[in-house]
């Protein structure tokens, strides 16, 4: 939970007779990190998957699922970033998208159609804030923890670029796009199981128009984590879409 004092486990070493697993749990790699054994990760993955399905409002469970299952995908994302000039810079500079770091007034003052203006419009219209992204806990690599954090913080920009709202339907579409882009098992599961709670009409629109479009975008687009969004607020959304390779959203009525 945010605000709680971090517990270091150096005292654990003083206790003998403990299983070896706890020895490796003595090291916290970043604030908020909770080291976990493979068994715990497996249990967490299973438990969070069930809980996320049972109670869709448990966003923390979706986050935990992503962290416990995303090891391979995160590594591959990190490598993609390392081998791209802009992505490499992001890994070095570690920008964070938070209300404290964003100059909201400046972004609102940007011309219509620019990334910054449309992003702020999206936040206001859907009544969301970039500060609700949950920090990672169960990723056992400090750089990969940043990668997943970046993925979470860039999610709202995905909504903006794809033109999708934050209702269930919009979220599922973005999940499909992210699943193809990142390969994170959590995105794949979310994309596959998210639709179960949608009405038949929405499912039809989803299946016939939105998902094919999302998949096509996911395939064609360059890696979304390799874009230094904070340096492109003035860029028109249209131009950024072309640069990345995202087609504008189809006109659908639900």
């Amino acid at each position: 939970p945010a605000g709680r004092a971090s517990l270091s486990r150096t005292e654990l070493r003083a206790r003998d007779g403990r299983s070896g697993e706890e020895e490796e749990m003595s090291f916290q790699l970043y604030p908020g990190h909770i080291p976990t054994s493979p068994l715990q990760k497996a249990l967490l993955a299973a438990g969070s998957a069930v809980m996320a399905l049972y109670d869709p409002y448990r966003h923390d469970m979706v986050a935990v699922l992503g962290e416990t299952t995303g090891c391979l995908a995160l590594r591959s994302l990190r490598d993609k970033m390392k081998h791209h000039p802009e992505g490499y810079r992001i890994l070095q500079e570690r920008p964070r998208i938070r209300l404290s770091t964003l100059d909201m007034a400046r972004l609102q003052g940007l011309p219509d159609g620019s990334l910054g203006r449309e992003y702020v419009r999206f936040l206001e219209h859907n009544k969301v804030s970039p500060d609700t992204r949950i920090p990672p806990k169960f990723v056992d690599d400090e750089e990969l923890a940043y990668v997943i954090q970046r993925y979470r913080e860039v999610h709202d920009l995905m909504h903006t670029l794809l033109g999708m709202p934050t209702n269930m339907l919009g979220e599922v579409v973005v999940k499909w796009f992210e699943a193809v882009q990142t390969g994170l098992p959590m995105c794949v599961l979310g994309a596959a199981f998210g639709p179960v709670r949608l009405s038949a009409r929405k499912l039809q629109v989803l299946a016939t128009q939105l998902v094919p479009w999302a998949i096509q975008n996911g395939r064609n687009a360059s890696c979304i984590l390799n874009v230094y969004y904070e340096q492109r607020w003035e860029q028109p959304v249209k131009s950024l879409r072309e640069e990345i390779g995202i087609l504008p959203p189809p006109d659908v009525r639900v």
Partner: protein
Amino acid sequence: HFGFQTVTEAERREKIYQVFESVAKKYDVMNDSMTLGIHRIWKDIFVRKMNPCPGTLLLDVAGGTGDIAFRFLNYVRSVREGQLRRKLRQQQNLSWQEISESYQEDNLKSLGDSQVVVCDINREMLKVGKEKARHLGYSEGLSWVLGNAEELPFDDEKFDVYTIAFGIRNVTRIDLALQEAYRVLKPGGRFLCLEFSHVSNPVLSRLYDLYSFQVIPVLGEVIAGDWRSYQYLVESIRCFPPQEELKAMIEDAGFFKVDYQNLNSGIVAIHSGFKL
């Protein structure tokens, strides 16, 4: 110690307060999940061991969400019903007038003057407890007091029974809590403590450790969204004195005929002592 961390006493009290503040709403759900519902049986056995008769004044310390208090009320109510039934059977030769008179005076005391005071240091836990009482329909013979086990807000020699169930582990100065328990009990009063203890059987101990350290924090994260509080829980159990040591501490506070009973091979133990 806060779990396996070393902290000052003041820090420990603060941290433990925060733990229970955070877990209060999901406390009962988590208890059921972690112990697969067995904690209910432990508490039933505990109250049965207490075997309170109607008219008992019970102080339940760290009683938070009311589990012991409600069981106590149920128990004395059923004992009272039994008493009334027996009394009726003996009144077969009385006139209708006399029978109806005795009905009236007895029905006013379905609990037989038994009372339980639930004392807890944590406001959130008390809130949850009061809400539960309201929801389950407990109102008579029950009161809720905010207080610290190390410094109870009660006069000397007030209570017949003092209980502390799964609470003494969280007290920073156990010796003070035991002294306070001694102080507020009447002569002849009984001290009862239900707490996680030590498993001596090596096979069971390994399985128990595995379950505690691998599964319980995961349950805490998945059900309550709170890994750290449940990590604290399992660590605090390991740090708590084992059966014999706790027995000695209770004796040091002045209690006599101190004894303990292991439940589930020592996963849980009930300690009992008398103020004579």
